């Protein structure tokens, strides 16, 4: 199993969620985060005071997938979150040791 952590543009969430749902991903966790990569922030001016806003709002998606689903999930995510402009985000994949469904006590792939 792998844990996919994706940082995407907020307005892409619906497309990503639909595309992943269509290939059989049955769950994900979404959180609002801020950060920066190569996309620079912007400046805001309030009367005499100018502030540089470095951290831009993004969405972070966390989801666990089986080894078999991994490549397809990454491709789908990339396609759905893509705009071609700077700031589209990143995908990180980490090994996942165990997963448990609390309701039934099922383990690993059966719990996804």
């Amino acid at each position, binding site marked *: 199993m792998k844990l996919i952590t994706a940082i995407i543009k907020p307005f892409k969430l619906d497309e990503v969620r639909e595309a992943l749902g269509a290939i059989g991903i049955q769950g994900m966790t979404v959180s609002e985060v801020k950060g920066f990569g190569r996309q620079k922030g912007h400046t*805001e001016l309030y009367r*005499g005071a100018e502030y540089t806003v470095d951290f831009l709002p993004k969405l972070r998606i966390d989801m666990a997938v089986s080894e078999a689903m991994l490549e397809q999930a990454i491709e789908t995510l990339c396609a759905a979150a893509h705009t071609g402009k700077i700031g589209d985000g990143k995908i990180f994949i980490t090994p996942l040791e165990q997963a448990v469904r609390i309701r039934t006590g099922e383990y690993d792939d059966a719990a996804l």
Partner: protein
Amino acid sequence: MDKADFVWVSVSTALVLLMVVPGLALFYGGLVRAKNVLSVLAQVMSVFCLAIILWFVYGYSLAFTEGGTLIGGFSRVLFSGMADLSTMNFELAGNIPELAFAAFQATFAGITCALIVGGFAERARFGAVLLFTALWLTFAYLPIAHMVWAPGGWLFERGALDFAGGTVVHINAGVAGLVGAYYVGKRLGYGQEAMPPHNLPLTMVGASLLWMGWFGFNAGSALGANETAALAFFNTLLATAAAVLAWTVVEWLDKGKPSLLGGVSGAVAGLVGITPAAGLVGPGGALIIGAVTGAACVWGVNGLKRLLRADDALDVFGIHGVGGIVGAMLTGLFNAQALGGPGLASMSEVPHQLWIQLEGILITVVWCGIVSWLAYLIADKLCGLRVNIDAERQGLDVHEHGETAYQR
């Protein structure tokens, strides 16, 4: 008593109240960080209320009764002698009950004290602010109001023109706010971390209510339902419109983008600028005063602010001080009949009038500057003017008032 005059002045009194709560409170409240919004609302409201009480006890008497050239007397302490309620016989001030006049003027004292709060916002202790207000009202506002507005007052007799309080209210509050910013010191992290306004729509609502209420402030200062009120009313509309656009355009050209905060700041600047002039210049003069004040105050919150090196958090001096000074000088100019005003018959009188206007400004700046510093000093020694570092980090809402504006 003239019934129409009484109604207009009393409605105007309520309009000035609208300027403070909720107008000024929301205007200021939106500009601070979310952790301090309630402290600003609470300070504006309580400071206003304290000023009203003190006005009743001795303020009105010292400001408006006959006395010396600097301060009035004690004959109207607790509004004594103003009305005989057993016979319902009320003393008159002009065509209205003196009680109605005193009520109208009470709101002026209140808003002036409330304006100062912006200078030391986000770091002053509530109790010390109240103590400062009592001292400042007594030793700065009352003498200056007496000098400018009361028959026998020094600047009044010299012929200083201040229709609705450009000097008494705005320059006065602007200087006190600036001195406060110096005395209390810069906010923790000022210049290093971002302190953007937490809610500009709130600021927009506040500024709009200020504009609305300002019709009472300016047109009400005609003290009757008359032609001067009509003039002041329209000038208040026109000058403000000019100032909004002036600020917007200057900012657009200088910084690249026309901001909403710039627009609403321009509205307040224009209202400040037209205050001393409202019933004393023609509409053409009002248009120019609005535009010039709007543009001047952009400098007030940028170049001048950097020069002064004070953390005047909500730009009380940059807008009320600068706008008040520009307005006071331009009043002396556009009052001339040759420039569309109802006053000076000949342009040759203008230089002398400008000198008198300048005198009024200088006296206010010096007097108010010294009194403000002493009042802050006393409040600081007795109560501690500034919150400690932990409290400032946590925010004044939780630390000073035990509540939070927005639940998470």
